[in-house]
């Protein structure tokens, strides 16, 4: 057992002192102190771009601090590579997935390990991975290739990867951002079980209710500095935390004006489509969205939401059925046709579908209107106009970025989302397909996005909002439609959470209502 020592008591498994990290144009960490106790869940809070991921990347050995020191179990450490950190028992689940898309789940988990020594013998390890998954209630097919998995499933692989390595200290950078509410509950019970075994967890999340529910202590960062450290979770309120993060009061309630829905903008008729594995993902979906209406699409991840968004926006072929936008049949037509009709798309995968990671902020925001004046005249792109336009959006949408020429892969998760939102909303859409638009955003930014969506609705846009956040769906939507295994289970317009929840598990509305009728009788 480690000797108790006056300066760093052994219950502090990690101590980071005066960490400074600079990137070109930003001071991401400015003399940050951070400590983690054995067996605790310590939440790290802060706005988008506050420097949370940077601090944790330093602890995980991915970045080197410009100055400052790190103690693990009371001993100074100096991680040159992530391998050093893993050896010291520190495992990190990244915000951007660190999975090789073309490899199987098991291969991804075995990557970098000493065992198996030479021959992979995948069948044997598939077995172990499946068992591990089962033990923690995570269902993943070990033989599936990662590119075939939904974002939620990929996240589970990330978690499994660290569990498999038996890390003592687990850093989770927004692990719940991609999970459905029920999955979050499962994750929390795993986390609790882990802390009971003496493991320590650093938990980054923008969702204050989660932080309140799971964490023991909280540290808050703002613009690279610590604004509050080691708060006991049960002694603070959500409002206080929000203020510490954003530096102002955050209004949690929404001001939703009554709007009379107009004409039908989106009409989906008996739509069928396949997923990447070639299995049916949509099985006869019918749906309409009218002007000035937000229709929420609820469902557990992987029930066809992504495929539906992709078919409507022209990114995926429908095998049967029709999609109409403002009366025009755009089924299986090129994406550009939809864009001309005013379809805008906020995709689930923001790093690959939503943005071009190596292009600048400017290039990313002009991607939809680069071929129209004033940004281009004929063949010529007007760089001044493009930059001016980007500059305006940067201010309007509060995008924090050193320069407009920065490639967007350098942006923090939240800021990248703002770039996409800026592009999609500024195009004045008639139909907006928004998939998880607030995932990864801080409370202040979420408030902003919700306002933007409501403003679009008041302007007469038709909005299909796809989200796994039931609270968000119910607050924003005029109607909530539930999808399960590619079929619409029913529709709720009075915010009946229980009914939505039951439909999400695959019970059709008729059956629920019939059951109720039986009961009444």
């Amino acid at each position, binding site marked *: 057992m480690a000797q108790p020592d006056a300066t760093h008591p052994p219950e502090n498994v990690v101590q980071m002192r005066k960490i400074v990290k600079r990137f070109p144009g930003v001071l991401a960490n400015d003399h940050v102190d951070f400590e983690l106790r054995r067996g605790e869940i310590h939440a790290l809070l802060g706005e988008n771009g506050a420097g949370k991921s940077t601090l944790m990347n330093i602890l995980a050995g991915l970045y080197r601090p410009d100055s400052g020191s790190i103690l693990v179990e009371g001993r100074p450490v100096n991680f040159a590579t992530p391998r050093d950190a893993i050896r010291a028992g520190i495992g990190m689940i990244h915000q951007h997935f660190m999975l*090789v898309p073309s490899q199987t789940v098991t291969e991804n988990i075995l990557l970098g390990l000493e065992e198996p020594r030479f021959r992979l013998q995948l069948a044997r390890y598939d077995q172990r991975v499946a068992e591990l998954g089962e033990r923690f209630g995570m269902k993943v097919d070990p033989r599936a290739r990662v590119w075939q998995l939904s974002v939620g499933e990929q996240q589970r692989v990330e978690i499994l990867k660290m569990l498999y390595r038996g890390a003592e200290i687990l850093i989770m950078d927004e692990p719940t951002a991609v999970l459905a509410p029920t999955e979050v509950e499962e994750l929390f019970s795993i986390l609790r079980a882990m802390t009971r075994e003496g493991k320590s967890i650093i938990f980054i999340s923008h969702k204050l209710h989660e932080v309140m529910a799971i964490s023991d202590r909280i540290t808050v960062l703002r613009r690279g500095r610590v604004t509050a450290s080691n708060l006991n979770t049960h002694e603070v309120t959500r409002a206080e935390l929000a203020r510490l993060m954003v530096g102002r009061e955050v209004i949690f309630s929404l001001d939703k004006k009554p709007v009379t829905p107009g004409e039908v903008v989106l009409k989906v008729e008996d739509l069928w489509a396949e997923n990447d594995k070639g299995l049916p993902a949509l099985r006869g979906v019918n749906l309409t969205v009218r002007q000035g209406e937000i229709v929420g699409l609820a469902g557990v991840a992987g029930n066809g939401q992504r495929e539906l968004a992709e078919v409507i926006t022209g990114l995926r072929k429908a095998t049967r059925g029709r999609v109409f936008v403002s009366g025009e049949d755009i089924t299986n037509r090129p994406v550009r046709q939809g864009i001309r009709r005013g379809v805008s798309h906020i995709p689930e995968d923001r790093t690959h579908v939503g943005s071009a990671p190596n292009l600048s902020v400017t290039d990313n925001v002009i991607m939809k209107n680069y071929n129209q004046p004033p940004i281009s005249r004929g063949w010529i792109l007007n760089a001044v106009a493009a930059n001016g336009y980007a500059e305006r959006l940067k201010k309007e949408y509060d995008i924090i970025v050193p320069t407009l020429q920065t490639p967007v892969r350098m942006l923090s998760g939240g800021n990248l989302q703002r770039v996409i939102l800026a592009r999609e909303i500024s195009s004045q859409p008639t139909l907006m397909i928004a998939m998880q638009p607030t995932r990864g955003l801080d409370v202040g930014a979420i408030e902003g996005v919700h306002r933007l969506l409501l403003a679009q609705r008041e302007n007469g846009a038709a909005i299909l909002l796809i989200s796994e956040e039931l609270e968000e769906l119910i607050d924003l939507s005029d109607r909530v439609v539930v999808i399960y295994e590619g079929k619409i289970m029913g529709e709720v317009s009075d915010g009946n959470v229980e009914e939505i929840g039951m439909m999400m598990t695959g019970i059709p509305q008729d059956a629920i209502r019939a059951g109720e009728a039986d009961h009444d009788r």
Partner: protein
Amino acid sequence: MDLLIVLQAGVATGTILLFATIGEIFAERSGVMNLGVEGMMLLGAMSAFSIAIRTGNPWLGLLVAMLAAGLISQIHAFIAITLQADQVVSGLSLNFLAVGLSLVLGEGLSKAGTITLIPSVTLPLLSQIPILGPVFFTNQKLIVYFGYLLIPLAWYYIYHTRPGLHLRAVGEFPAAADSLGVNVYRLRYFYVFVGGVLAGLAGATISLAISPGWFSELTTAGQGWIAIGLVIFAQWDPLRAAFGSYIFGALRRLVLDIQGPMMLFGFPNPFYYNPYWGFFLEMLPYAFTIIVLVIGSREAIRKRLGAPTALGIPYIRGERGL
């Protein structure tokens, strides 16, 4: 013209392409494209021949050829991996350097004497199998049998071993491999080295076994470029690479043999009467290479063919993922 003999000689000739192609597959799987294959092969052919003349030992020549080409490949590795320069430019430069070096060092080598060749062997039982026996296992150079061994070994290594898993990860998504403690830079250096060693082996196979001697740049005659085309055609898979290599080897032999007889299948042989027909056949692998390279340079098509995602992209630690 005996078809079996053409095929048998074709397998021998194809062994040259086989080594070079599998070598380049290793380098590219790790994310580094090396366009210097032709030069490295030539360097291998030259050093193998020169050492074999001087020592009388072809095996020593083979070894030195592999080392020489492996070493020179590290120049490209340094420029492409450490200095993070453009891999196409660096690979082309390596090619010029290696070709030039071979021609200078090989000056006068063509008349320097004769060497002991790598011996030929007929395998006792296997050579009795109909068709396959005479083509693959009868009177083949020992080195050709190395080729047979290399194909399944390379395949098994890439898909079914831990180092192979790391190799694929480093070429697909280096940031993921790095985050788990796989040393991306070291592995890339290593597989560029492997590519060099196998290119050197390919060169030595020419000068010590298949068409023995030193004929300056005609020794390799552009086969290094064909190998680069074959990598794309093979979709970075050793089994398909073997298939392509032997087909092209057979075609190469066919060009030589088909011009001999006056009659072909009872008809006057056009290749006999008009040598341009032969030139046309001879051109096919090169034309194929140009077409494959042009098609394969399209990003979207490369992706569909299964090119390693990070191929040609230097890895910079601390930058966010692709």
